[in-house]
Each structure stands twice: as structure tokens, then as C-alpha cells.
């Protein structure tokens, strides 16, 4: 199967990109205008985290394989960017064992992000080779091993990562605008991949592996390519995240975040890029609301006790509700396409009146 680049599919993808970007710009603009520090932070964090969800969606949505390992690349990207961009003075103090060239560099955020993405892609290429050759179900579980390997390395390689103590003092470069830019670019990449011949081939493999193989599609390279590209996106997202979080440790890149990201993707719609964004919003809102229950609140005279695990329980129930009631998620398999031309026409009509 040699589908080429289809102008029609690309046009549809472009329209989705425009629609989604417009929506995101509105969100970011509102945050900037409100000029409330905590809202700005929330929005920036949301936009960056959503980039990660989109990166994950690129793999799971297109290939249909549930990967448990992608958060590892989030972590690799974050640590890589941190090591490249933390001021040398801090590195001398906190990471004395670091090789000199690394210790004395401060590359700036953008190069750090690019290098982080590249490093993630490289690791994905090496470590993704074996899982790609397995049956679809087994590959997902094998990526588990990837997650645990990377976590163990990060947690124990204290000379480079400070292990469990965590790493700090990454320059707080991310603003809502930069985060928005990052998400828009990543969304574009995801939509382009989905519409590309690569995307189509792997979607075919997802839907009917035997048929697609008989048409000459080689599953292993396609899967590996998808794995590597999505890992690069996770790496870039991780790098951005590091510049927003400013300090973090290995626990940020393990099961809790794997769970959150999978939840966001499923709730929004695993086959849809816009779904990843919508799902991220929904799960974030639910989590923040339930955080009050988890910490215990006082409403007037009533003291509501701490409900341990309220946040995770709600998110898990949200996943189950989605799978039971609407397994394709909020967006289903479609992408957001705002009818701009129709709006333009309506607007012209309205002006002429």
C-alpha cells in the first residue's frame, strides 16, 4: 500500500489545525488578559501538559497499541533540557560530578528543547526496536519495561540527575504564549502525521493487520517510526515542562503521570488529536475539583474529611465511564473543524444588512 500525500487529507488536517489553534489562542489570550498570576500558571501548565498528551496520542491513537513507556521520554526530555539549561553556577554546586563541558554550558531554552527531542528520539530508536517486532498486545506491555528502565536509571544515576533529590533551578522561561506556540506546533505535527502516508499505513495496521501486510506494508519499521516520532514530541514536551516546573524529581515521570496522560487521551478520544486536547482539559478540571475533596475542606460549619485517593479515583471512574458509555471518547474519531468560511459568509451577510 503506497498511499501518497493526499492534498485533500492535508487540507482537512490544515483546517483542523487552524480551528484548534484559534481555540487555543483564545484560551491563552484570555489567560494573558486576566493577568492573574495563578490563572496564568494554570493555563501555561495545562498547555504544556497537553502537548504531552498529544505526543502520546500520536502513538496510541494511530497504532492502536497501548504504550506504557512514553512517559519515559517525557522524563528524558525534561532532564536533558534541565542539564543543558541550568546555570553553570548551580550545576557546579548541585552536580559536581557532571562532565565539564556539560556543566559549563547553558544552551538557552530553544536549543535545549530541540536537543531533548533528538535525544528522546534516539533512545526510542534503540529501545523500541525489540518491542516493535512483537505482537501488538505484547508491544504495549514491553514498553512497560522501557518506563521502568528509564525510571531506574534516572533515579539511581545520581551524578547526573541527583536521583531522588531531584533537579532544580531551570530558568522559568515558559509563558502562556510560548506554551501555546509549542502546543500549536506539536498539534500541527500530530495532525500532519495522522494525514500522512505513514499515519495511514499504521492506521491500516491498527484496523486490519493481516490485510495491510498483504499489501506490502512492513509493520515493524512503521511502528518503530511512529514510536520514535511520538517519543521526540514527548521529549520536546518534557523540555518545555522542565522550563515551567523549574524543579522536579524522577517520580514525575512514572505511573501517576502515565495514568493521567492515558486518561486524558481516552476521555477525549484516542483516535483524535483534538480529543487529546479536550480530554486534557476535562481531566484537569475534574482533578482540580477533586483535589479539594482529597485535602479535606470546610464548607461553612461542615468539615469534610480527607478522602484519600479522591483525585485518582475520580479520574479512574471517568475512564471507566468513557469506556462503558462512549468508548471512542468525547471527540470520537473526528477532529475539530470550525466552519470558518461559513462564518465568513454569515459575517458578510450580517454586515451588508
Amino acid at each position, binding site marked *: 500500500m503506497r498511499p501518497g500525500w493526499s492534498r485533500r487529507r492535508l487540507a482537512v488536517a490544515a483546517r483542523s489545525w487552524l480551528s484548534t489553534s484559534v481555540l487555543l489562542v483564545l484560551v491563552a489570550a484570555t489567560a494573558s488578559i486576566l493577568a492573574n498570576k495563578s490563572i496564568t500558571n494554570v493555563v501555561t501548565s495545562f498547555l504544556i501538559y497537553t502537548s504531552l498528551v498529544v505526543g502520546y496520542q500520536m502513538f*496510541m491513537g494511530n497504532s*492502536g*497499541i*497501548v504504550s506504557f513507556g512514553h512517559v519515559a521520554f517525557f522524563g528524558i526530555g525534561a532532564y536533558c533540557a534541565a542539564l543543558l539549561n541550568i546555570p553553570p553556577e548551580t550545576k557546579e554546586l548541585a552536580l559536581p560530578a557532571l562532565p565539564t563541558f556539560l556543566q559549563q554550558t547553558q544552551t538557552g531554552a530553544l536549543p535545549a528543547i530541540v536537543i531533548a527531542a533528538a535525544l528522546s528520539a534516539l533512545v526510542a530508536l534503540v*529501545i523500541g*526496536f*525489540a*518491542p516493535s*517486532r*512483537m*505482537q*501488538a*498486545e*505484547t508491544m*504495549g*506491555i*514491553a514498553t*512497560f*519495561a522501557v518506563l*521502568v*528502565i528509564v525510571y*531506574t*536509571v534516572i533515579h*539511581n*544515576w545520581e551524578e547526573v540527575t541527583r536521583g531522588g533529590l531531584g533537579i532544580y533551578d531551570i530558568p522559568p522561561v515558559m509563558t502562556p504564549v510560548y506554551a501555546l506556540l509549542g502546543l500549536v506546533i506539536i498539534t500541527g505535527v500530530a495532525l500532519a502525521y495522522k494525514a500522512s502516508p505513514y499515519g495511514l499505513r499504521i492506521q491500516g*495496521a491498527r484496523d486490519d*493487520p*493481516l490485510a*495491510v*501486510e498483504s499489501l506490502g506494508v512492513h*509493520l*515493524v519499521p512503521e511502528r518503530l517510526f511512529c514510536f520514535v516520532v511520538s517519543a521526540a514530541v514527548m521529549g520536546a514536551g518534557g523540555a518545555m515542562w522542565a522550563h515551567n516546573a523549574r524543579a522536579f524529581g524522577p517520580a514525575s515521570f512514572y*505511573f501517576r503521570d502515565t*495514568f493521567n496522560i*492515558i*486518561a486524558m487521551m*481516552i476521555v477525549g478520544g*484516542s483516535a483524535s488529536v483534538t480529543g487529546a486536547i479536550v480530554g486534557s482539559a476535562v481531566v484537569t478540571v475534574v482533578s482540580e475539583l477533586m483535589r479539594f475533596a482529597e485535602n479535606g475542606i470546610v464548607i461553612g460549619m461542615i468539615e469534610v474529611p480527607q*478522602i*484519600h*485517593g479522591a483525585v*485518582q*479515583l475520580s*479520574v*479512574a*471512574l471517568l*475512564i*471507566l465511564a468513557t*469506556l*462503558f458509555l462512549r*468508548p471512542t471518547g468525547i471527540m470520537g474519531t473526528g477532529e475539530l473543524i470550525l466552519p470558518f468560511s461559513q462564518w465568513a459568509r454569515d459575517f458578510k451577510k450580517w454586515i451588508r444588512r
Partner: protein
Amino acid sequence: MTLEVFVQQLINAISLGSLYALLALGLAMVYGVLKVLNFAHGDLVAVTGYIMWLLWMKGGVSFPVAVVAGILGATLVSILTELIAFRPLRKASYAVLLISSFAVSVIIQNLVRLLIDPRPQGMKIPAVFDRVMIIGSFHIGFLALFTLATCLSAMGLLLYFLMRTRWGMALRAAAADFEVARLVGVPANSVISLAFAVAGLLAGIGGALWVIRSGGIAPTMGLYAIITAFVSNIIGGLGSLVGAVVGGLVYGFLDIYLRALLPAEIRAFVQAFILIAVVIILAIRPQGLMLKRREVSK
């Protein structure tokens, strides 16, 4: 490595391997009939542990009774899990079932936190398990032998059940071809519940041993259990009960011997090394050790 150390480590390896094999078997039982990996299987270990803790440390109940209660609790939770999360999704795709089981795993972990105790706890283990037996120049831990004996007995009982009882035969037939099993009259719901019950029982026994070995419990302790169960099954070959056992043993051996052989500076990375070794095994034989080569696409 001296002969004494080698033999002692050998016994540890077989013992740990048999424990991993037991946990892997439970997972394989459910995979056999449903063809899906149940993420929540590992958390049955936490359920067992916390019930044991509640009864033994907080409730003053005798240790053996606490263990039995823990095992029964795990079995019950396993059956409930099927009813609540798998039965309604019977016709769903593999990915949906896997994610559903992931969600159930998180639910179980957090229910344990909510209903029993949110923090990790230590367990005072009866002193008998610390005993060391001295045979000639070899020092052999009672716990290692106990673990091995228990696991072998459990596996033996499972074998008897599968090979010599009507229900066991029905389970094997359902795992071989679920539809045709229904065609000859095996009730679908019952055989699936049975698989989950057996899985829960195995996980409970394995969980009790795990807690005795580790001396502590934590809500997320199921994580390591599920990692080993998953990986053991994949090493051995997904869908094969013998594969689960072989995979568990291989994992146990890798664990003990890598820990013993690695130089001290990198011993902390042992978990990563074990898994890298697993990835290498899978790079050579993606279908696992016990299965024949199959198409990647299936």
C-alpha cells in the same frame, strides 16, 4: 563466587522464581480465557497485604488466620473485578480492556488507601521465617524453602485441578478455543469467573508470601508484582501456562544473580539491568521462550 554462595543463591533464585512464577500463572489464567492482560492482578497482592495487616497488626488475629483471610480477600476482589470492569466490556477491543484494567488497578489501590490505610506500613513477621538452617557448610533460609514449597504445592494443586477435574478441563478448553467451548456447552460467564477466582487465589498466596518476604506493605506494592507478572509471561510466551512458569523462573534467576554479580556501584540499577536483559531476550525471540514464531501482525 564460592560454591556455598552459589548454591545458596541458587536456592534463593529458584525460590524467588517460583514466587514470580505463581504470580505470572495467575495472570496467565485470565489471559487464557479472555486474551487480555489484567493490570489489576498485581494489586491483589496489595489487597492481601493490607487485609493481613489489618487483621494481624491491628486486629490481634493470629497470623495464619490473617493470611487465609488475605488470600480469600484477594480471591473475592478478583471475582468482583471481573463482574464490574470486564463483564460489561465483554465485546470490547484489546486496548479498551487493557486500559479498563489499568483504571481498575488505580481504583483498587485508592480504595485500599481510603478504606484501610493510606500510608505504607511495616509488618512484624513471625520469627519462624527468619530461621536459617545449617546443612554442612550451607546456610539455607527457612523462608526460601517455605516459599518454594508453598509455590510448588500451589502449582501442583493447580495442575491437578486443570488436568483431573471437569471444571479444569473446561477451563483449558475455553483457553484453547472460547467459542467452541461455548458450543459444547461450557457457560461463558461461569468459566470466566472461575478463571478470575483461580487467578485471585494464586495472587493471594503469592501476595502473602511477598508480604512475608518484604515485611511491609504500601498501596502501590502491586506495581512491582504486576511488572514481574507481565514480564514473566512475555519472556515465557504469552498464552502458555508453562511459559508463565518458565518466565517467572528466568526472572527470578536474573534478579538474584544480577544482584549478586553486579559490582556494588551499579547494584542499584539492577532492576534496569534485569529489564534490559529481558528486552534483549525479546529482541532475539519476540514471541517468548516457549512459543513458536508467530506473525508480528496477529
